[in-house]
């Protein structure tokens, strides 16, 4: 199915958010995720089902002021 991940279109096979991270090789340990503008906590990802057209944000720690 086709999803928007960090603003970019992706064709993916995964059906949950945890699997999507593995499929797209987001293998960092410190990730924050949101689906369609709602927080998905790290422990909730395996149960977070994905649907066609979903928007996923994957963020990590970065420098900030």
């Amino acid at each position: 199915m086709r999803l928007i991940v960090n603003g970019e279109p992706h064709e993916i096979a995964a059906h949950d958010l945890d699997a999507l991270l593995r499929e797209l090789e987001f293998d960092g340990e410190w990730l924050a995720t949101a689906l369609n503008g709602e927080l998905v906590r790290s422990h909730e990802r395996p149960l977070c089902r994905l649907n066609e057209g979903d928007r996923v944000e994957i963020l990590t720690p970065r420098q900030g002021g």
Partner: protein
Amino acid sequence: MLQLYGKQITSRLLLGTAQYPSPAVLKEAIATSGTEIITVSLRREMTGGRTGDKFWSMIQSLSRHVLPNTAGCHTVKEAVLTAQMARDVFATDWIKLEVIGNHDTLQPDVFALVEAARILTADGFKVFPYMTDDLTVADRLLGAGCEVLMPWCAPIGSAMGPLNIHALRSLRGHFPDVTMIVDAGLGRPSHAAAVMELGFDAILLNTAVAKARDPAAMAGAFAKATEAGYAAYHAGMLEPRDVAVPSTPVIGKAVFT
């Protein structure tokens, strides 16, 4: 000692982690500043990348308190979601709340700021709101549950220093017991000393240190100025006078004529 939501902090300088020439220089600046609190952000990760992990490992090795921000957010929804994501990653309920209202000045949208602060404090966050120097906004933020306020003294990254001393003095005077950190717009150590001499509790810096020719040395200079301003305020400064007053006693002066 500085009290921030129940935490005791010795250093009165908070330091941002952005724009340094290298991670090594950042680490050195953090060390010379003596800061115990550093600010961080969340940004998109690249597929297959571990940029966030590398940065976060380095930050964790420094054993400082981390204050995540919502930099770049322009709406309540963006800011609240970013704060929630930050809490999930950084495992802290502290959040430096920024809701930007204008692209040119990066001044906060104070209406959205108050609304976001209310939502986040109700959700258990300890909010550090980046605000203007407006008294009414301060009052609304306190009503929203904020225990710390962070007024700007000039636009972010401008290095202009305190532009409205009267407004800052009014804030301090109206809320004498509220912890207030001057955030944004400081350019040089004398600016830090000037706002601390008004009675503010701490300052938050980034660009003025990161963009100095020698960031580590500048971080040290700011730390000294911040402490000097704080000590001066509490020592009770002499107010300016319109006439000269001799410091050497007049009585006992020799008369030679």
